[in-house]
């Protein structure tokens, strides 16, 4: 009697699935709004992207309202909020995209010249064309100071994290609080502090002073990331180690820390990404020098951000081209560091 096939299971219907038919009206509104706004921008004195946005926002809001009409107040509000969130996110991301795009397009020219990485500005001035001079001095200086900062910060940061997570010392709440607040020390204040101690003490600018100033800014990042990583170590490992009779120092050094080896490296990488582009503290501590220097104690040392800053001040066409190239170099460094950090962060979870 019944034709219902009881053998094969019913195909599930998934009412929440996004089908082309459901998205079509929304796409239509978005496209229609885009085109209508472009027409208005072309025909009236409103100009540029901001003019376009000014027209597009009301059109898309009204369109969204029309689409969801008849589905009840809740659905209408939901749709309106959804549209607003997407628009707001668009506005938030637009400057970032614009920045990345400009840096890449403007910086590629100078960066593609081999001499940009191989030579320094010892004999080249702001008016020299891009096939002369380069950023070698700044690259080497940045590398030197980042290494100094890392050598100081990594042990201190890991010790701090161990204190908070492993030792659970009496002051851990305070230490955690201080570390977190330290991440807000303005970079120029870190520079002033090192100026008033190291630079005034040695009576000259130096790469060492620059590295120390960067270390102050790097410490909170390293300590906090290392703490997050150490928290992921399962307590079973610690208990097992203690049960085998190992004292705390052996447990920490030979069980806990090796487990999160790549996490510790990640914390260092994120710290480097944080400081590689700092300008203000280096202005006051390492200053700037046009030639390549390898000594961290004998006089001023150039760095990529300060070099960029100085190029901006001289303001010639070629200086700006070099500044864009330096920015591209800095962005590439940050990107590579983040990618490596992301690749590593999956490693420890077994």
């Amino acid at each position: 009697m019944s034709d219902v096939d009881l053998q094969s299971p019913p195909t599930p219907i998934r009412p929440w699935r996004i089908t082309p038919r459901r998205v079509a009206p929304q796409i239509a509104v978005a496209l229609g709004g885009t085109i209508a706004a472009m027409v208005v921008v072309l025909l009236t004195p409103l100009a540029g992207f901001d003019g376009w946005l000014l027209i597009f926002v009301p059109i898309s809001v009204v369109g969204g309202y029309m689409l969801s009409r008849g589905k009840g107040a809740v659905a209408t509000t939901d749709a309106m909020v959804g549209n607003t969130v997407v628009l707001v996110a668009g506005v938030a991301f637009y400057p970032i995209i614009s920045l990345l795009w400009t840096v890449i397009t403007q910086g590629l020219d100078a960066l593609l010249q081999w001499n940009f990485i191989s030579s320094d500005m010892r004999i080249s001035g702001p008016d020299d064309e891009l096939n002369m001079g380069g950023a070698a001095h700044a690259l080497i200086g940045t590398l030197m100071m980042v290494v100094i900062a890392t050598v100081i910060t990594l042990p201190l940061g890991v010790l701090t994290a161990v204190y908070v997570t492993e030792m659970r010392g009496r002051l851990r709440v305070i230490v955690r609080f201080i570390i977190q607040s330290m991440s807000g020390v303005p970079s120029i204040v870190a520079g002033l502090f090192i100026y008033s101690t190291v630079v005034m003490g040695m009576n000259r600018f130096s790469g060492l002073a620059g590295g120390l100033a960067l270390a102050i800014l790097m410490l909170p990042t390293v300590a906090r990331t290392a703490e997050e990583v150490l928290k992921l170590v399962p307590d079973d490992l610690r208990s097992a180690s203690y049960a085998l009779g190992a004292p705390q120092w052996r447990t920490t050094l030979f069980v806990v820390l090796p487990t999160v080896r790549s996490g510790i490296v990640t914390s260092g990488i994120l710290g480097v990404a944080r400081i590689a582009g700092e300008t203000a503290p280096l202005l006051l501590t390492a200053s700037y020098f046009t030639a390549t220097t390898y000594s961290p104690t004998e006089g001023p040392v150039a760095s990529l951000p300060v070099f960029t800053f100085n190029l901006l001040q001289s303001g010639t066409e070629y200086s700006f081209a070099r500044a864009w190239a330096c920015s591209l170099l800095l962005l590439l460094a940050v990107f590579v560091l983040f990618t490596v950090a992301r690749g590593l962060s999956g490693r420890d979870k077994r």
Partner: protein
Amino acid sequence: MGAALGHGTETQVPEKRTIVAQASRGDRVFRGIVSAGALSSLVLLGLIAVFLIVRSGEIFGRFGLDFIFSSDWTAGAEADGSDSTFGVWAMLVGTILVSVIAVIVALPLAVGAALFIEFYLPERLRSSVRMLVDISAAVPSVVYGLWAVSIFSGAASSWGELLHKFAGWFPLFGVENEQYDRSPFIAGLVLAIMITPIITSVSREVFSRTPPDLVNASYALGGSRWGAIRNVVLPYGSSGVVGGTMLGLGRALGETVAVYLVLNLVFKPNLRILESQGGNVASLIATKFGEASQYEIKALLAAGFVLFILTMTVNMAATYIVQKASPLES
């Protein structure tokens, strides 16, 4: 032996032992080293405050509160500073003004972007967009400055002009000279763009930690996506958003290079945000440092101390709020 247990025979209850956990020598050394390392951050923060105030004590001693509440910055030629006057009031007002503009603009953008990433974006794209946000939070400020000088400030000054044209009756938007570049408005927008990723990153993190049970319960009760966001996600994540905003504010208060490049420093307290004059303590330090005399350097250190206290207050408040929301797990 086993049979004896529990059969009425007198069992000897052993004396309660006192357990003494005595750390071995290795452990004591280890704890000493770790504590010393951890306390270095505490010492460092103290040293920063002490050194700044010791090296600039002469300035505070001579000008007292006038150093904070007056707006005159004249560096004289005399080595003992007898013909110099220093006061950071205009810069202080400017710093706060610019940072407040930045937060007012950045907060809605960041919350919108965070909600977008966690609740509207398809799952496949989520991790790449998260990375984009994290990278833009790490873009050096000099790069933001370069972009602002060459691309953004032109557009922003025309927005300023529009704002004056249509809302000029509002005292904040009035101007004395018809010049709209290098204004606090532009500097505030640039800072907003810089701190949006920071606030987004923190807010997104808290939003993503909303217990999924609560969100699903909201859906199960027939709530819409907005219903779930308004009644579950936002209340749950609000302290995180506040904390992230305070961190962004701290960053904005201490920003040097980007502001230096887009703002015209004038030693006059100015609240008309579209006017081409403003102030910022950090930029003041960067501007004057190059050719400052020994005496003026002391004044700059004093300005640095004022800035340090200001940002530390904001940051400690932020830290307190955030840590209260996510207390240290035992």
